[in-house]
């Protein structure tokens, strides 16, 4: 029904929502001064998808550094997924990271601790993330 995409910048991730495929993707660093403005759009899209689409939703993440206000915003999004999961709706997260930076896996792991839906933390092939 509605796709959306926000180009990434130095301090904000590239974000894309594909309504037909049921995929929300986010890549890059996230440390805007006001993360609320940015994440509100993502939150609304996820909320609407879970309410209206009637299809599985998967988050494909390649997030790196998140400041604390971005972490709080991501937690709100994962809480939405958790609620949907408890209502029996299929949701999943795939968070891919460069194994040379274990901080990213630790960050993902801390989110995963509070989630009961499928949450995969996947090491990328280092050759594929040379940049």
């Amino acid at each position, binding site marked *: 029904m509605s796709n959306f995409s926000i180009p990434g910048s130095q301090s904000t991730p590239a974000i894309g929502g594909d309504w037909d495929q049921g995929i929300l993707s986010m890549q890059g660093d996230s440390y805007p*001064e006001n993360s609320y403005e940015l994440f509100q759009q993502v939150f609304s899209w996820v909320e609407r998808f879970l309410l209206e689409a009637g299809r599985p939703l998967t988050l494909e993440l390649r997030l*790196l550094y998140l*400041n*604390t206000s971005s972490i*709080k915003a991501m937690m709100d999004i994962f809480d939405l997924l958790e609620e949907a999961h408890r209502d029996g709706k299929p949701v999943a997260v795939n968070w891919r990271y460069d194994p040379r930076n274990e901080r990213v896996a630790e960050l993902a792991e801390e989110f995963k601790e*509070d989630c009961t839906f499928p949450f995969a933390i996947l090491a990328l092939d280092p050759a594929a993330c040379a940049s």
Partner: protein
Amino acid sequence: MEPFDLFSMRESYNRQQIMLCFNGPISRSLIEEIGNALRNYLAADHAHPSSAMDVFGVYIELTQNIRHYAQQKGWTETDASATVVVARNDAGHYVVSAGNIIEQADGEALLACIDELAGLDKAALKARYKEQLRKPREAEAASGAGLGLIDIARKSSAPLQGNLRRLTDGRAFVSLRAEI
């Protein structure tokens, strides 16, 4: 007027192994630009990616806290002045320090908070962090730099250090130091 000579400043910076420093009004874009420079220095210094991310993260939380504080108080851009120093200590650890003007009472509360965090081990800091993360945004704003400070403490290898220097008009200058 002092004679024009940056040599002693340079000597002092070298002695303290200062990689980067900034003093003045700090804007959103300046935080990003200095952050970029910091990342480049860390890469050139062959810092481990996770350690570089910790140093960068501490720098971002400290500087964004300073801007948030000035905004909360309704202070002008010039009042959102920061003194930021990134250095290495003799043990080879990165040290990120930041200072700014603050109301005396807020400064005292901040130092009390730092003292309290200093007594917590990694597991207790994590529990405190998760608890703070779950607090509503208004409660977070009211308590000041709560989440950011805990995050900095978690990324540090030694307890945070703080110092308050009293100025006039009920204001003070607070310095925070995090060793990564």
